[in-house]
């Protein structure tokens, strides 16, 4: 998709004025964090598991080439095929090629952020193949032609009324006056529609939460079971995954599974956790005849060893979104691409370029909440600051802001001059600040457009202190009551 990240400010303004979106975000803001906290508190070793999960991925990233080769060998040994793809285009073409060879008309899909990243749906459609999203949320946004607004809850931005409208517009073969008031009826309608698709699909395309090197297995985590129908029913199963999804062993996978659902939704484990290894074996009752893994780089290998290396530990749990006050204010679409929230703000510039995504690392207070909940202990604020450093070096952003910062820094490095200038400035502001604050002030409109600005309360502390002032201590000495 064409990123709208350059319009982040405008996107954000519209999102803040969007009432259904705000209602949805208000619900998310309470639900997910509360459930995560409860899940973490139920498990005494949760913090240790976070350390272990981080260490596993650190180890993988240091030895990624070896693990990828080991993984490929296992997949091949089990009768599957691995396709290495450098970028989105190669991945799309590879998938199309597999579909064509399978004579596919319809491809069922279970939720995959990588498939969003490479925009494979539009590409398949252009080439006469119908992709059908089978995760309920993804199905809804596919009908609406929208990108996901959350990495684990793609349609979280919609109300159930909006979903009902979407279904009425899309499922025109059904009675127009049917009752769609309850979430249950929406679910059942989607289920009925999708059942036909599951049975008719020639290829099933899934993502992978992890790829296990010791067994050549891909792990799929869902709550709807749609991934299982996607990988089992069609003749061909295609897995699309990026290279950093590797973990060494089944044991490692289970460590990460223990933090994944707890961080994401507060579940101890997701409803379905599926392990797929190769195509159907003679003794298997079901399973695909062909098994392909499309292994995507798309900028990851460049991140290795860079200041964004640690981002590659991300397991896409969504906790950083659920806890981010910026995300909770503007939702996912404002970020303008398929990822969002703190992980998106770090990742998107890596994937679509720093210029296009320049707002994202800046639109953060660096409050640190994301890092405090990230199961993989990814230092997200630090990396946002790294993007700001790169931008500063590249002289991006407003020239006026840069000039103001430079002038201030110049002054801050010259204490004596700084003191004289600040004393004068404070005296000047103090003259006009008789009401204790300003409702508007030239050069400070960014501040005063939204809030009053307190006026300086007297001469600077340092000048008063050096004249021997001690402040008004009457309150302390006389135990005077104040209101």
């Amino acid at each position: 998709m064409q990123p709208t990240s350059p319009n982040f400010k405008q996107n954000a303004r519209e999102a803040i004025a969007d009432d259904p979106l705000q209602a949805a975000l208000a619900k998310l803001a309470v639900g997910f964090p509360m459930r995560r906290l409860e899940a973490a508190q139920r498990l005494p070793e949760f913090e240790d598991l976070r350390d272990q999960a981080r260490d596993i991925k650190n180890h993988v990233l240091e030895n990624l080439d070896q693990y990828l080769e080991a993984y490929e060998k296992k997949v091949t040994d089990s009768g599957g095929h691995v396709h290495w793809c450098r970028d989105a285009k190669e991945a799309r073409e590879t998938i199309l090629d597999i579909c064509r060879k399978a004579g596919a008309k319809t491809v069922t899909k279970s939720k995959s952020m990588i498939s969003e990243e490479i925009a494979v749906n539009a590409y398949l459609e252009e080439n006469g193949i119908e992709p059908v999203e089978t995760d309920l949320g993804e199905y809804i946004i596919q009908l609406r032609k929208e990108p996901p607004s959350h990495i684990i809850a793609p349609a979280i931005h919609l109300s159930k009324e909006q979903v009902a409208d979407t279904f009425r517009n899309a499922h025109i073969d059904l009675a127009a006056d049917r009752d769609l008031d309850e979430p249950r009826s929406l679910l059942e309608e989607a289920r009925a529609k999708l059942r036909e698709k599951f049975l008719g699909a020639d290829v099933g395309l899934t993502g992978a939460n992890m790829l296990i090197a010791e067994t050549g297995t891909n792990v799929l985590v869902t709550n709807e079971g749609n991934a299982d129908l996607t990988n089992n029913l069609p003749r061909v199963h295609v897995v699309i995954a990026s290279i950093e999804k590797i973990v060494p062993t089944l044991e490692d996978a289970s460590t990460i599974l223990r933090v994944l659902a707890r961080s994401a939704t507060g579940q101890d484990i997701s409803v379905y956790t599926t392990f797929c290894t190769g195509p159907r074996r003679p003794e298997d009752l079901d399973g695909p005849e062909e098994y392909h893994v499309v292994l995507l780089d798309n900028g990851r290998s460049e991140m290795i060893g860079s200041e964004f290396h640690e981002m590659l530990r991300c397991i896409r749990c969504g906790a950083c979104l659920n806890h981010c006050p910026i995300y909770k204010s503007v939702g996912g679409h404002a970020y303008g691409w398929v990822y969002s929230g703190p992980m998106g703000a770090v990742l998107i510039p890596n994937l679509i370029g720093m210029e296009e995504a320049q707002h994202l690392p800046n639109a953060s207070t660096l409050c640190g909440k994301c890092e405090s909940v990230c199961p993989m202990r990814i230092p997200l604020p630090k990396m946002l600051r790294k993007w700001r450093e790169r931008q500063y070096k590249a002289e991006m952003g407003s020239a006026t802001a840069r000039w103001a910062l430079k002038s201030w820094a110049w002054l801050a490095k010259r204490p004596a001059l700084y003191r004289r200038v600040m004393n004068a400035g404070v005296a000047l502001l103090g003259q006009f600040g008789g009401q204790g604050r300003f409702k508007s002030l030239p050069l400070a409109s960014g501040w005063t457009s939204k809030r009053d600005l307190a006026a300086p309360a007297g001469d600077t502390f340092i000048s008063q202190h050096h004249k021997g002032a001690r402040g008004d201590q009457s309150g302390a000495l006389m135990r005077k009551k104040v209101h």
Partner: protein
Amino acid sequence: MPETSKPTVGLFVTCLVDLMRPVVGFAAVKLLEDAGCKVEVPASQTCCGQPAYNSGDKADTLDIAKNVIAAFEGYDYVVAPSGSCAGMIKDHYPEAFADVPKWLARAENLSAKTYELMSFLTDVMSVSATNAEFSGTVTYHDSCSGLRELGIKDQPRALLSSVQGLKISEGNETETCCGFGGLFCVKYPDISEKMVDAKVDDIVKTGADTVLAGDLGCLMNIAGRLQRRGVDVKARHAAEVLAGMTAAPAIGEPVEGE
């Protein structure tokens, strides 16, 4: 305590307190002296450099930080009435000088003895109570850097609970960012407004008449929004209350009679 055994504290007053709200500086001096410290205020201090650091201006950050290190490394302790500035010195100086070996050791040395005011009082000077009085109900906002970089949560509450007449009413979202974020609040005013509105709503729900915090940046943001919305809740730095220096008007309030 005899003069000689008193620890000397260099007060890093912070640029905002210095310029906007001197009473916080006086309160800090009083609290530190009452706790048995000898307090000095080096005149060569300006700012910790955080605005430059968070804007990606690494070169200026390092230059400003070098000034701070030179001005403060001679003291036993460095104390700031701000979790944000203390966090900058404590956490981010060593990080910023990571590949400047000549300065790294000095940055780490300063980091090891730098504290936020209230946690310094409780954790280092073992202060458990002050003799101040304040009649009213307050709610406390946990500033992000203090909370998440320095682990400051219980210390201010412990001290405040010793203030006679003071009642604490906790909000549900005390740990949620107020939307200040330094330059963030002027660069992204719409998002910042949304965040500070949520903060104001949470404060109003507590029924408190005063909101306290340990960082003037957050407080000016919150006070400014309270006032813009016409909400009658005052904002003060917690040190003012702890030092009994609440005769002066609250943040952004006019001097009585003017």
